[in-house]
């Protein structure tokens, strides 16, 4: 059974010490994480720097949007080929405007989907947490498959100066 514990700190330095201690105690990357109420500089806690593929999402969305827009602007005009103002049925300049907007729209929607996906959201069972994290406390959370390691983790957190340890 998976269990987890959360060590709470008020300052970033002891939280970073706890993260270092967990690495030194042999805990695998990905089994422990740091929770904060505000963004800190990347690597401030010596944490594992997450990799992401967010930049692929807008490109993918833009390709879909562009394809749909080419279809919409050309097929609809050819389906009812009424000349207006002496302009060609397929007026490239006018088509480009619609194509531009649809490409950008799909790019934005895909980016938002990407941000949510890469943030690993939605997560309706977020696990152990403490509301003081959004009041400036820093949480170091460790997840275990093997309960025998709980004591080791608690020892690391206590040594680093955790003000409180919560279990779930």
């Amino acid at each position: 059974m998976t269990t987890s514990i959360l060590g709470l700190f008020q300052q970033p330095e002891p939280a970073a010490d706890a993260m270092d201690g967990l690495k030194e105690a042999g805990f695998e990357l990905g089994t422990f994480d740091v929770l904060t109420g505000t963004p800190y500089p990347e690597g401030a806690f010596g944490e594992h720097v997450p990799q992401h593929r967010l930049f692929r999402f807008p490109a993918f969305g833009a390709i879909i949007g562009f394809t749909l827009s080419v279809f919409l602007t050309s097929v609809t005009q050819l389906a009812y080929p009424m000349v207006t103002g002496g302009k060609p049925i397929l007026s490239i300049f006018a088509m480009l405007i619609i194509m531009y907007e649809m490409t950008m729209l799909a790019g934005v929607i895909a980016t938002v989907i990407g941000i949510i996906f890469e943030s690993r959201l939605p997560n309706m069972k977020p696990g152990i947490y403490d509301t003081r994290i959004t009041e400036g406390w820093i949480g170091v959370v460790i997840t275990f498959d093997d309960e025998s390691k709980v004591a080791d983790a608690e020892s690391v957190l206590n040594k680093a100066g955790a003000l409180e340890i919560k279990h779930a």
Partner: protein
Amino acid sequence: MQQRRELDQVYTNRKLLNGQLDTPKWWLPTVSILGVVVLIGVVVIATMINKGLGVTGLARPVYWGLFITTFVFWVGISHAGIMISAILRLTQAEWRRPVTRAAELLTVFSLLTALVFPLIHAGRPWRIAYWIMPYDVARGIYPNIRSPLIMDPVAISTYLTGSTLFLYIALLPDLGNLRDRTTGWKNAMYTVLALGWRGNPRQWKMQTVGGILLSALMLPIFVSVHSIVSWDFAIAAAVEGWHSTIFAPYFVIGAVHSGVSAVVTMMALMRWLWKWDDFIRPEHFDALARLLIVVATGWLAFTFLELTFALYGQDAPEIALREMQMFQWPWNALFITFFLTAYLIPVPMWLFKRVRTNIALMFWTSILVNVGMWLERFLIIVPGLARRTPFVYTWEAYRPSPVEWTIFIWSFAWVTFLMLLFSRFFPLVPLFEAKESQVFTDDVMIGRAKVPAIVREAD
């Protein structure tokens, strides 16, 4: 910018969530009054739809009047959000932090309001579906994409969708904060909306990278929207004063001028109403006024160019139109008021730091700008149509009717009503941005001077 206050996160939460966790005394009476105005507006709109456009002052040859002027005005105001949020985020301007959410919100609500005007202006709004939606598969009749009247809704709906999503993504950390501070149904609502936000490094990284990426994507949309709105006019070759080649950049810079001014108005109100003196400080008004001086002067250059090109062409109808705009009653009074309020009064005042850091003066001058910018749109749209031209067999002097004025007032009440309603449930200043500012700022000693310094990551 040498003002800095040490604020702990508990205090930041308490102050910036005071609109959500408590109900300010003024909130309910204000929202009730606005609600009544909104209701009156809705009844008037419904009556107009029922009776027809005969209840307005619109008549041949002036078919585009107060409604279209107000539509362009609100689209202009909507440019505040992306200008402030995206450009300042991309340039990592530190003073953006308390401004971004309100600016993004203004974008969303002003666009929602702007969209109402072309709909009701069409007289029979339900027929709009034939006009803009490519749905009539059975008969094979589709919208004419060669018309700017199709390009316009496409651009605005893109901007509205993008801005709303942008607003929501940036709201996620604060929704997590609200979830942590509430109980009962409110807690359930924020839990769902926060999507399980915890604040781990992956989520914060996505906020940072995603915010920059969305900003970069929204900027080209922002430029395109008011360009396309300008083409509603510029592509119509028949009306003097409309078919100008510089309309697109002229409209965009005018929109930024009015939009950023609207943000200043809103910032002053937020500081006064919610007592956010620690977060919205004179230095923010100072920075916004400096930005406005540049934008307003750029806009003035375009106004000058527009007049110069019109007169240099020596096209007799165009010159007659300019003469009418500037020298004939009542247009001349409107023209003088427009010029005074949009530039000649506020901008010289903003050259003085005492004015830029005086919040009451900034509030009133920003309102002046928007009076002027509304008049600018009116003077672009109406005189060109109202001028007596050969082969027009009928004309009426355009005088907006009480119905039009009521709907005009409704639009302001509606935007304010939506903003206040939003403020009851969501923070108007991004908390995580305010806190991040504290994390990344420290005082350094240079000689004997203590100077606040911003720390920034290299990449």
